[in-house]
């Protein structure tokens, strides 16, 4: 196990280097000049040179890249171009807000959707199953943006059950987050339930399920005691690899409801040419994805004794 982890971490080094190179090329080499974005078209040559020096953009590109690599290794991404704030603090605050937007519907939705999928699998090919399949296909053909818009209009604007948008820290955040939570729950249902139903049904005709039936197990017992425990592994796989995306936050929700998470931070940074934020979010997002993929493989080995890590 230990040797496996060490090797996987070593294997991740060229990948992370590649991510750093890609990020650096896109933002520093090909992107528009952030100094020009910040000072506008009428800035003097002197003012531009000063700012360029202050931001360290007057160094040759290879040296800037080495600086960027050092930031990645030390987890110190410096300060924002625009506000001058320390990025570590800013990103930590943003990540917490993003998690508060996405984590509750992710956890609650996971449980509810597994339950609904079990119910549908219990009545497979029956009326419930057919109706659900048609409904989900139709529902998934409508853009997520439309759900956000329609539910905000109906529940917040017309019925006044929720604030239209905004955010406050602490417990009062719940008031503002309730509607985004509800919308995300609905958006998760279609894809999740379809996936879980397929997972459950894949095992329905397996030998060990037939054996359980032959011993007189009821359909419910077959599903709960024999099919569900086996399906946990792919369910975990599906969900663990989603966690980095939770930290990233739902860009759409944050933008639509003006919630100050990582998504909003990134989009604001994009229009202001705030390269340090953009580069830090991109690299940290990739690092999280790599780390959770490794964690996922380890969990896989723990959950399934047939899997040998080598």
């Amino acid at each position, binding site marked *: 196990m230990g040797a496996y982890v060490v090797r996987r971490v070593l294997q991740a080094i*060229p*990948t*992370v280097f*590649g*991510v750093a*190179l*890609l*990020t650096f*090329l*896109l*933002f520093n080499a*090909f*992107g*528009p000049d952030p100094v020009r974005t910040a000072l506008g078209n009428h800035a003097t040559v002197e003012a531009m040179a000063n700012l360029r020096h202050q931001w360290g953009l007057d160094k040759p590109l290879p040296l800037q890249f080495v600086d960027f690599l050092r930031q990645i290794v030390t987890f110190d991404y410096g300060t924002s171009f625009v506000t001058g704030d320390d990025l570590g603090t800013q990103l930590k605050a943003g990540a917490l807000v993003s998690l508060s937007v996405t984590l509750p519907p992710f956890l609650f939705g996971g449980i509810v959707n597994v339950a609904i999928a079990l119910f549908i699998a219990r009545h497979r090919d029956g009326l419930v199953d057919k109706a659900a399949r048609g409904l989900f*296909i*139709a529902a*998934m*053909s*409508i*853009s*997520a*943006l*439309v759900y956000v*818009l*329609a539910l*905000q*209009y109906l529940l917040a*604007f017309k019925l006044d059950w929720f604030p239209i948008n905004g955010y406050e820290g602490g417990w009062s955040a719940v008031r503002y987050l309730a509607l985004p939570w509800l919308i995300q729950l609905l958006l998760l249902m279609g894809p999740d339930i379809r996936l879980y139903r397929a997972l459950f049904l894949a095992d329905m005709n397996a030998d060990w399920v037939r054996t359980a039936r032959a011993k007189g197990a009821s359909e419910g017992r077959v599903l709960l005691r024999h099919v569900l425990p086996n399906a946990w592994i792919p369910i975990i796989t599906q969900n663990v690899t989603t966690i*980095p*995306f939770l930290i*990233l936050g739902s*860009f*759409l929700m944050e*933008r*639509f409801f003006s919630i100050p998470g990582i*998504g909003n931070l*990134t*989009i604001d940074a*994009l*229009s202001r040419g705030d390269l340090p934020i*953009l580069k830090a*979010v*991109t690299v940290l*997002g*990739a690092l999280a*994805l*790599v780390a959770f993929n490794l964690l996922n493989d380890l969990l896989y080995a723990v959950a399934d004794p047939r899997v040998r890590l080598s």
Partner: protein
Amino acid sequence: MSALPATMGAPRPAALEALAALWRRPHTCACLLVVAAYALVAVLGWLHLLPDAEAAVGGAQDPPAWHLATLLGTDLLGRSVLWRVLAGAQTAVTIGLATTALAVPLGTALGLAAGYFGGWVDAVVDWVYSVVVSVPDILLITAISYAMGKGLASMCVAIAATSWVGIMRLVRGEVLKHKGSDYVLAARSVGASAGRLMFSEILPNVVHVTIVTATLVLLAAVKGEVILTYLGLGIQEGASWGLLIAGAAQDLTNDIWGPLAGTVTAMFLLIYALSAIGDALRDVLDPRVG
């Protein structure tokens, strides 16, 4: 004597076989007609034969009326909402096709090369693959739209950049399965070049994977346009479904439903038809299903 089994005749190409199978399903046929209608709208738009979506046809925000141009009402500048929805369809088809035209050949070519040559080619392709999949899609799209400037072209490149990897992976896997089979060895033994083996021998047998994923890329592009445009990363000017829906939030508070209803219907039909065709194609082309 009984007739020869059907399998004795020369096999029809898999793609033709698949098309014939699709025609036998009435539901899929209907979906193909829907997609054909959108393609027609797009072609008419490219030839400038659609009514001008930028021209005023009435007053500001006229309510819907029984006249074709004002069937869904007009917008703030008096332009026909229906014409704008149609122009948005043209934009959506353009984005879908451009993205697919970028992602599918790139993914297929790299998958073929990585699977066929193995060794350092495979290692390099695998490195690029692992880098691209490690960056969460939305961040890669953000970075590309920063580097290239916002707009239709950069959005197509960005969505393609996130979607070629899946195709590459699938094609590479299929090529590995086929590389050692008898028909490839036979072609090699009569002196076929690497290019001929890859493109004339192996490619026709793995192309079904590409076709099924191509419909997924198309779908991702059409859906992606709306979200990215809303986030300010996509279409900046002209007519697009994303701009129409983004503007609809304001309209709703004034009880104006035309733009939202029109755009949602237009999007729903296209996405529903495309996903149904994708599913049907998978059924008829993928030997592992059904």
